[in-house]
């Protein structure tokens, strides 16, 4: 299983810790973190992650703005972005898709849903039914 880079973006250290634990414990991927949209753009352009998971409500630059900024740059325009929205309403989700995100999750994040999205975009090496794919081989 390839070790890929996942950039996690949230201004809340508590939320960031939860996502980080989830990705590190359940997948072989490397985790990068950022505390707001502006830092996320900077890290993404520098480190070229394979997937970005980003909160919407953040100081300095929010998730929608960061998403638009990443899509406008050649280096980062193809990186899949998953936005984490507080509200599951259609308007909020539509704004996310308009800004260029590929998918969304609603708070509080359900670990199983997050793992399913990780599996869809970069693979997790985890089948969800007892053991990793690598172990099965």
């Amino acid at each position, binding site marked *: 299983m390839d070790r890929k880079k996942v950039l996690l973006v949230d201004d809340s250290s508590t939320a960031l810790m939860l996502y980080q634990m989830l990705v590190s414990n359940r997948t072989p991927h490397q985790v990068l973190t950022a505390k707001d949209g502006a830092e996320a753009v900077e890290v993404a352009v520098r480190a070229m992650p394979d997937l970005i998971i980003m909160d919407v409500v953040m100081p300095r630059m929010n998730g929608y703005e960061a998403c638009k900024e990443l899509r406008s740059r050649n280096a980062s325009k193809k990186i899949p972005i998953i936005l984490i929205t507080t509200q599951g*309403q259609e308007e909020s989700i539509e704004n996310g898709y308009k800004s260029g995100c590929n998918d969304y999750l609603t*708070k*509080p994040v359900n*670990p199983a849903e997050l793992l399913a999205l990780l599996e869809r975009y970069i693979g997790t090496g985890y089948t969800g*039914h007892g053991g990793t794919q690598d172990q099965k081989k």
Partner: protein
Amino acid sequence: MEERKTKRSDEPYDLRKSRQVKRGKLEQRAAGPGQPSSQSASLRDEVFSLSRRQRRLQTELDRERSEFARLTSRCSETESHYAHLMRFYVATQRLLDAQSHEDLFEIIHEIVANLVGCDEFGVFRLDERCTLSLVSSCGIDKEKLQRIPLGSSLIGTIALKGDPYFGGEALPDLSLPQESNLTACIPLRCHGRLFGAIGIFRLLPQKVALDADDKDLLCLVGRLAAVALLCNSVFCHTVAIEAEAGSGDVAGNSGAGRHSDYG
């Protein structure tokens, strides 16, 4: 001849069957109408044995399917338990990492918003005048809930009583208009001493209700936050006494000075 036999046994099953059927038909024609041939009798036996085998395999398949369903459900239970433990771990770790009371109240805010999924809530701290004062909030009218005297209104009564409240329980009708949608109230309490309370007024729209895991987590936060506040106060008090006595750094490291927040 031997070679021919070997070749026949290597033939695919379907081909062999079709050859047997053809042979059976020829024998049937030779024996005359209505007379069963030895070939058809053997085929009947084989059909009987195959259907018995099919029934046995079907039973085995059903058993495997039910075992798979049981394991899938167990797996999903384990996943959910794991997610719950992870939330517990993160909440505990964050609360114990708090450097000051302000830090701690901010962490409580983050836990309630991100790990539980609340939209409208307030975190109150008990001050020296026995009043619960709002130190952190989200989505509520701060002015109306700025100060709640202990023992008055719904939040004040629950805090004084000391037991967490999760809606639906019969309580004296003491609620202020701004408390009318109180969903949960968790006193921050340890060793019989009250430090504050968390009042939850509304959950995120996509969250239907607080489940058992959420309630467990909130109870843990209520107790652990109180322990952390107590430890922080004791630590700060000790540092102050040590400083007064002129014995220097009580914690044995230069970082102790940052714990300057008194409870």
